[in-house]
């Protein structure tokens, strides 16, 4: 659990915009803006006071600004009921927002070369990260992918703030036809990258992690697992993650993550409880008193 205490607030909507295939909502949320560190997200209640939609929708924070005491912007694609409702909001509506949530991206102490890899709307948290890295004197290179050009996130902004920006699309409508991992090796080579940061779907994160490990450079991934509360109480967003002690635990993406060291996430076992995870069926036989004491 992050040591920054999140706040829950009723935030007025400042603007609702459409950006390519995405909607962008900016809310006035000083308490969230001031606490924010890149990689963190917000959890939004949807559907109004007597909503039939009980679970919160989570979105990476794309940008914070000091206006009006502090604003927070998030970008989203309409997928289901909740995002459809959000897309209909207008300025001055109130949104019940909780944030900032989750473990932020750890930032390097030294001015190293960082490559930021994102897929679709999963790229959103990379933008505040890029700014934070630049402020520390890091070199930033972007590799962004999407199904089509309109699904590649903020290509222009990426070009503006990064040393280089490489794009891939499934249909070739922007940049290279293919996946981000098809171009990542070249970018790492050219940019002499020291660190990889990645956001996007699990299969992409797995491949990016594998590649970073081949290069022997650290990789921080922000995972996307279905979330219902965002605050750590529903226990729904679990991912098998290896701890410092070598023991696999079912970690909650919302409070123990969403950012993990790539090699710690057992990507091949996502959606399962690995047989050797702490407390897995039959685990006791292999475990013992000591491990039990550290469980949970």
């Amino acid at each position, binding site marked *: 659990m992050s040591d920054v205490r999140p706040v829950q607030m009723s935030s007025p909507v400042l603007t609702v915009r459409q950006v390519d295939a995405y909607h962008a909502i900016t809310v006035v949320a000083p308490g969230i803006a001031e606490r924010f560190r890149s990689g963190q997200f917000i959890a939004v209640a949807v559907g109004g006071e007597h909503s039939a939609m009980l679970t919160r929708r989570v979105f990476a924070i794309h940008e914070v600004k000091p206006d009006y005491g502090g604003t927070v912007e998030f970008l989203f694609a309409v997928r289901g009921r909740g995002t459809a409702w959000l897309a209909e909001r207008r300025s001055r509506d109130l949104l019940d927002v909780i944030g900032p949530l989750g473990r932020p991206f750890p930032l390097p102490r030294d001015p190293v070369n960082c490559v930021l890899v994102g897929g679709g709307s999963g790229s959103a948290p990379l933008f505040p990260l890029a700014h934070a890295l630049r402020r520390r004197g890091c070199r930033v290179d972007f590799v962004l992918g999407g199904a089509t050009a309109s699904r590649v996130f903020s290509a222009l902004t990426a070009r503006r703030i990064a040393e280089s920006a490489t794009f891939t699309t499934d249909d070739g409508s922007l940049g290279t036809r293919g996946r981000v991992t098809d171009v990542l090796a070249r970018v790492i080579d050219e940019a002499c990258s020291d660190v990889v940061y990645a956001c996007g779907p699990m299969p992409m994160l797995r491949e990016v992690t594998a590649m970073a490990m081949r290069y022997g450079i650290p990789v921080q991934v922000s995972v996307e697992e279905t979330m219902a509360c965002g605050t750590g109480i529903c226990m729904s967003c679990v991912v098998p993650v290896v701890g410092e002690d070598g023991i696999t635990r079912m970690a909650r993406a919302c409070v123990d993550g969403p950012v993990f060291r790539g090699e710690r996430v057992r990507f091949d076992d996502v959606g399962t409880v690995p047989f050797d995870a702490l*407390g897995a069926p039959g685990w006791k036989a292999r475990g013992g008193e000591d491990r039990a004491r550290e469980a949970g």
Partner: protein
Amino acid sequence: MIPDLRVRLGEWELANPVMTAAGCAGSGRELARFCDISRIGAVVTKSVTVEPRAGRPAPRIAETPSGVLSAVGLQGPGIDVFLQRDLPWLLSRGARAAVSVAGGGVDEYALLARRLSEAPGVTMIEVNLSSPDPARGGRHFAADAAAAARVVAAVREAARADIPVFAKLPADVADLVGLAGECVAAGADGLAMINTVRGMVVDVDTRRPAVAGGMGGLSGPAIRPIAVACVYQVHAALPEVPIVGMGGVRTGADVMEFLLAGASAVAVGSALFHDPSACLRVLRELERELVDRGVERVDALIGAAHHTAGAPGAAAE
């Protein structure tokens, strides 16, 4: 006028009738970031098991109309870590700690009760009877009133005498009143109801059940009428037995509804996923509702729907 919110559950007095429901408040720490847990009537922990449990694979939850379907599978650190880490933390924050226990057999339940009785500060033990009974092919203990009664008797015997033992019952059993009666006869000081209701969501895109393993438990406002009916029915049959009502509590008015039906306190469960400050909001709303209606003591509501109503009629059409 500030209404008197104190309620009694048998010998147990609470400052107010709002508790958290088992498994819906994390270890307490997560919730404490959003509301002062010392002001909640009691914090009920997720069900503690003897050994650590990894729980079920993801996806574990799906949203349903006014509800959630979940299958977490009692993920938790086990009793040792709970006693070492979670319980002391709760007590350090001034929370009243009610501990839910789940075992794989009568002996495990008894062991848990014993361990909890050795620790200071446990104010109530809630016996989760919806845990699968390996001796009965994985059907849960509550499916068989005799098995449930054995568990309750073992816990009551193992627990310190001054710790009240409540039996937590599900709604989807053949004869709820019978089950409740057996649990009380076996020594339960009170009842907590209801646990989640068996349900399923099928994802029309993947064509598979939306939570891993297929079946899940339905909770949230969707099930509130089912829960209120259970509380009403059991209170009618066992008017002396204190009941903690739960199932879809979201507002102060919902608390009133459960109290009127016969609960002496209520627990807020999956509404916390939507609003982690729900417990204190609900308390404020309850206070407001009481003031608006000139009710001076909240306990005056308990069971009041029985005084005026006729006998409950048939259910289905």
